[in-house]
């Protein structure tokens, strides 16, 4: 089977997988306790409840969109239709469109977890190679033990301790949110602005960058993201060290490494050029898989730091039994993982021509 046929097969299988996941999510949320319709009768500011007509109207909408009060198969059908057409409905909790909420939250999560994943992969791989370079030494065993320990730490506790120490005790970092509170409501620092001059001769665009404001903008985000990123980094870097070490140790017993050493190459050159290049394949595919878990990865960390990403969104949705959010999140996370799996499979084929598909 060629590559194209393999991709086609893989995609068809993934679609079935996605449908199965939708059914599983549906069953889970059917079983979940609590009645979402109770959010449909919110107290209005004067202390009374919504008028019966309003409630009736809302219930009618719910029945039409999600099939509440209708038989199982109708519900399931409507549910599938909604997810596949990217209509996640209205959040019971936020009273806004879930896809809109997701739209502004996903960038934060991608920034936070993508950034920390990237940093920990780079640092972990380099560290792992260096550990192999120093193999058998105290540094080797110390690195392994440290990596094992940091990888098994309870994340929420690590986040809590870092928050308490750096933010509350030392006061170096802000303790909540993704940006300074005074920026809320669109009052961002004006880092740059355009001036467009149009005339008969043509058009010129001036881009004015204010370095001070730019610095404020970047540092505002960076300071808020630092502690969550540090938490995720500490938690995940160890795994990359151990994995790189294991993969590299497999590679450096190969004959071509001995040949490279025999040529009189420096050990660093041998490790990075001959060793890491050949060991990179499993590392790259697991990196692809790791990026697939970006959206599901950091519920607890985001909850501790109240970082307004997808994780905190999920966390609140679980607490307030906001089904529409949970369904959407589970769905999106599944898609991400499935896509990441396909990408990993493809990377294998592209990077290693020896692999035959079948």
């Amino acid at each position, binding site marked *: 089977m060629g590559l194209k046929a393999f991709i086609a097969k893989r995609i068809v299988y993934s679609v079935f*997988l996605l449908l*199965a*996941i939708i059914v*599983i*999510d549906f069953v*889970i*949320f059917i*079983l*979940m*306790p609590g009645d979402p319709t109770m959010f449909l009768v919110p107290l209005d500011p004067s202390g009374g409840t919504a008028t019966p007509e309003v409630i009736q109207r809302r219930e009618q909408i719910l029945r039409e969109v999600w099939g509440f009060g209708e038989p199982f198969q109708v519900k399931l059908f409507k549910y599938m239709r909604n997810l596949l057409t990217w209509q996640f409905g209205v959040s019971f909790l936020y009273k806004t469109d879930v896809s809109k909420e997701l739209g502004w939250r996903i960038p934060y999560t991608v920034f936070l977890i993508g950034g920390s994943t990237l940093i920990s992969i780079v640092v972990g791989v380099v560290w792992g190679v260096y550990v192999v370079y120093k*193999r*058998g030494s105290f540094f080797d*065993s110390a690195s*392994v*033990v440290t990596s*094992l*320990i940091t*990888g*098994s*730490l*309870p*994340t*929420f*506790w*690590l986040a*809590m*301790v870092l928050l*308490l120490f750096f933010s*509350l*005790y030392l006061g170096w970092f802000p303790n909540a949110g993704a940006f300074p509170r005074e920026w809320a409501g669109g009052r961002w620092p004006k880092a740059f602005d355009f001036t467009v001059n149009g005339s008969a001769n043509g058009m010129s665009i001036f881009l004015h960058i204010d370095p001070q404001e730019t610095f404020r903008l970047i540092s505002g985000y960076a300071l808020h993201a630092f502690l969550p990123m540090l938490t995720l980094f500490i938690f995940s870097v160890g795994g990359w060290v151990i994995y790189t070490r294991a993969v590299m*140790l*497999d590679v450096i*017993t190969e004959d071509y490494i001995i040949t490279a050493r025999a040529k009189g190459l420096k050990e660093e050159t041998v490790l990075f050029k001959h060793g890491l290049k050949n060991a990179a394949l499993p590392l790259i595919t697991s990196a692809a898989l790791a990026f697939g878990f970006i959206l*599901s990865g950091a*519920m*607890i960390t985001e*909850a501790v730091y109240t970082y307004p990403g997808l994780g905190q969104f*999920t*966390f609140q949705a*679980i*607490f307030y*039994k906001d089904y529409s959010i*949970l369904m959407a*999140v*589970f769905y999106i*996370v*599944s898609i991400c*993982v*499935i896509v990441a*799996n396909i990408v990993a499979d493809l990377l294998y084929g592209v990077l290693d021509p020896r692999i035959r598909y079948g």
Partner: protein
Amino acid sequence: MRSMGLRKSVLFNLRRFFSFIKILFSNRKAAFGLIIILFFLFMALFPFLFTENTPLGKDPETGGPVGVKFCVPAWFRHLPTWLGGNPHLTENFRAFTDPGFPTIGENGEYRFETDANDLVKPYPDPNFGYPLTVPIKGLNEKNGSLAIKFVRPAGQSRGEVKAYVYRQFYYPYSGYPADFEGNVELFVNGSVHGKYLDVPVRLRFFVGVVEGERYYLWPPVYNNDTKYLGAVDALYGFNFTKGDVFVDRPKSGREMSRYWIISRASPMGASYIKDNQLVRISMGLRGVDSVITKIFSKNPGNYEYGVEITFLDSDFEDKNVWTTVYVDDLCLDLYGNSYGIMGTDHQGYDLFAQLVYGARISLYLGFAVSVMTVLIGLVVGLVAGFLGGIPDQILMRINDLMLCLPTLPLLIVLAAVIGHTIENLMIIMIFLGWNGFARVVRSMTLSLKERPFVEAARAVGAGTGHIIWRHIVPNVMSVVYVNLATSVPGAVTSEAALSWLGFYDPTRMSWGRILNNLSFQGGAAQAVVNPLWPILPGLCIALLASSFILLGYALDEILNPKLRIRR
């Protein structure tokens, strides 16, 4: 012959086991991991060797939580101030006895004073005491009480006659106590002889500095519910006015012994219960901050507490008068603002006990989840790998599905669905955890079943079961051991995370729940005041988890000869 063979095999297995242990301990990671695991195991099995309290255990003497809420560790008193120590911290102090009033007087345990020595006489009454049918405060009923008898012949009236029964104690701490609780039971008995009349009596409970001001603390500070007091007054002749207790019309005769006036702190607040003909008026004498700082103004110093009994002898000057007041269970508890090794939580329970007993839950859950996931994973992996075909397909598809679902949110959602007792959490973790290991076993089985020794076994006619059991399983066992160790940390940290999020077992105090209490009841302020509260439970989780990981990693090194060669 048979027994001989059995003995030999037992000896052989024992020797094998011990040499394996020896190898384990020669590996530093394994030794470190094992020692920590054994320590926690010891803590889980014998928690009472570490602490006398239980996680939600009551104080045996007071029947309430062991201290006031948010105590800091007691040893913070000895820390230098720049390290966060505070020399003015106080501990629980019990000026507390269950008196039978054996000795009264100048050198006795309880002192007695009166301004009319000829009229007022104290004597211990061994037969008449407060009938403690419902044990409160852990007081054991001791027969007898102190009787204070006021007998005044006709024509010798002196107006108000005061008598004091009190106890002195030395309070050794330099700071204020955080709270206190007083307790006394009184019975006012009228005359038993027809030729005597009764006098009204005023009763007061007091605390104060010796030779200093006495603060009268009865009725309790927060007691302003006059409705039932009126009822009591109407029914039994008690009268509560101006902060004092008056007994206007003392009842006569011992048969009225159910009309004791009882003062004690009760979680129900002030109330009276008609319970088996025993009328109990429960009244708290709990202090409030301003009262405490006023009363305990000379620390460390000598204090006294007791009752003041005033016989209001202004009527019936020409008649004989006889009234007796019985005093029982006079005691005082002072609660400090520091407690034990780790302090107390938001309800006043001992944090250290919660920490020690938390090891049980983590180990129980960790072991159960790891054993069950490995067992299920082993069976499914073996079957799928060896048989192939449909079972294999099913396993792999389930595996694909499980991989796509976000684990922790799913765990929480399922916990919300089936209820979050510790056993349910285990079931969910096993349900979500077996497939990864099954996949490992499957791939190993796939490669093992193509090996020559399986072919040879099949050639001599061995069945599938025999081949799996005698040829495949022994070769998979190294992974089984490793996974037994490495699947514990995930379960332990997941349980902690769930408990921290609030999905804890309400009947058990786990490490995660301690941290939940800190985050959602204590808040950041408590974490700064008592840093042990956030640090130690998390450290225990981390230590336990990493010791299992280290053990698993070391086992992998030991059991996997390929890994050994490279080094």
